[in-house]
């Protein structure tokens, strides 16, 4: 049975969501509910990093969970980035072109830098 866990670390401007386990079909509802309370505390202009270094597996439904929060972040003007170092998962983002609709970075520093400089994404989520 797949398991997913998330813990949140908040400083003055940024929320780091440390994700571990598998972000897959079986736990998608639970994952969204785990993230939601942290996400709801964010205010306009704040930054949110999904730290996925400890994530073992993600499937299409897991991407669905991420997109759900990408859309929410866009509508609430929250800056969101995903930190992925696992080459398999990074490939999935790249091949599916999810890196065109969300900021994906290999480490926390690059993610924060990308959010600070607000590099435009090829496809903005304004249509959401």
């Amino acid at each position, binding site marked *: 049975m797949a398991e997913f866990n998330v813990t949140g670390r908040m400083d003055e401007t940024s929320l780091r969501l440390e994700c571990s386990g598998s972000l897959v079909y079986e736990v998608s509802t639970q994952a969204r509910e785990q993230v939601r309370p942290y996400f709801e505390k964010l205010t306009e202009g704040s930054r949110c990093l999904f730290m996925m270094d400890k994530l073992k597996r993600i499937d*299409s439904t897991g991407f669905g969970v991420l*997109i759900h929060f990408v859309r929410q972040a866009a509508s609430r003007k929250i800056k969101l980035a995903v930190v992925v170092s696992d080459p398999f998962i990074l490939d999935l983002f790249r091949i*599916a072109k999810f890196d065109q609709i969300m900021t994906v970075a290999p480490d926390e520093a690059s993610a924060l830098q990308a959010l600070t400089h607000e590099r435009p994404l090829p496809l903005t989520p304004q249509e959401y």
Partner: protein
Amino acid sequence: MSIFIVDDSASDRKIIRNFITKLGFGIPEEFASGESVLERLRQAEPGNVRAILLDLQMEGMEGIACCLRIRSMPGYADTPILVVTASNDEIQMNCAFEAGATDYVLKPIQKYNLQVRLRNAIQLDRERASRRRFEQRLQQDIRIAQEIQDRLLTRRLQRPDFEMELLYHPASNLSGDMVFVCPSGPQRYAAILMDVMGHGVSAAFIAVFLQSAASRLMQQNTTPGDLLNSLGRQMWDIASLPRQTAEEENGVLPSFLSAICFDFDLAAEKLHWANAGHLPALLRLPDATILKLESTAPPLGLFPANNLKTQTVGLPVGCRLIAFSDGILENHFASIGAGIETLSELLATTTANSPAAFLAALEKPLRPLLPVRDMDDACVIAIDILSKEL
């Protein structure tokens, strides 16, 4: 439906019978031994036995042995059995529950205690039966849906100039992977491989709907790019259907699909294709060069409009194409890129005179890659371009 009383004491049977009758459970059937009730149960319809009140301490066959025998008889696995005993002995109680007892009643029997326990046991049995019926109906529905999905899937297409074969492993009974291949004109064939987010019923339902839309568009010779743009629009429409409540709105995850679509124009020796968020298809040219037909856009359904452009490559006789879903690579390679390289190498080096033979040759190296149950759906299609002449 009757309640059975099994007790070797005539006076105890009488007390229980009176209670049961007064409590409105009808007139019970009485048995003085374990052997006699077993004999009766063999002849009875299991559904007609509402509950069994079984004394634990009896001459001859004891209650626990009798309970075990009843549970082993066809149709009595869930019939409520309440053991009746004068002893409060915990070990004996445990043995009774191990033997399959539903509950117990202590002697001397208190009328309302008997009423509550009997009523609860019967209610539990009713709910179990109802759940069993529901599950059977559900299983039957899933089997029918699986058959429908299976029929819609193109497993093989053999023409003098074009051959296609499919290797298909759904993670559960129903799959979000869908493959459809058809002739779309003289010396022309169309194919699509799509992978809808999720597994099971909802993914299969969307896949079948989109397959139907795709097959209509293919018959109209819609270009692969336009076809995927149209599917993307339809997926967006499905995902954007208004919800009844805000709670429902929050509960729905975005739906999307990755897809790769092909138009094989054999007369012009051209392959037109478009790829939205899907793994690259691999095209082996006659000189064993491998071309990767990579995704140029995110999956479909995330935007109201997509702007996929059709791409074109040369398609001489002797080409072999494979397209696959990500379930084939999951958890077996350090990266997706490494998995694609392995498949490219297998495509370049495996000699086989048909797509079927090629997939059979791939079976051995692919076998460890196929998903275990509850992982992702997995499929590979192989297509050979044979000759321009009909």
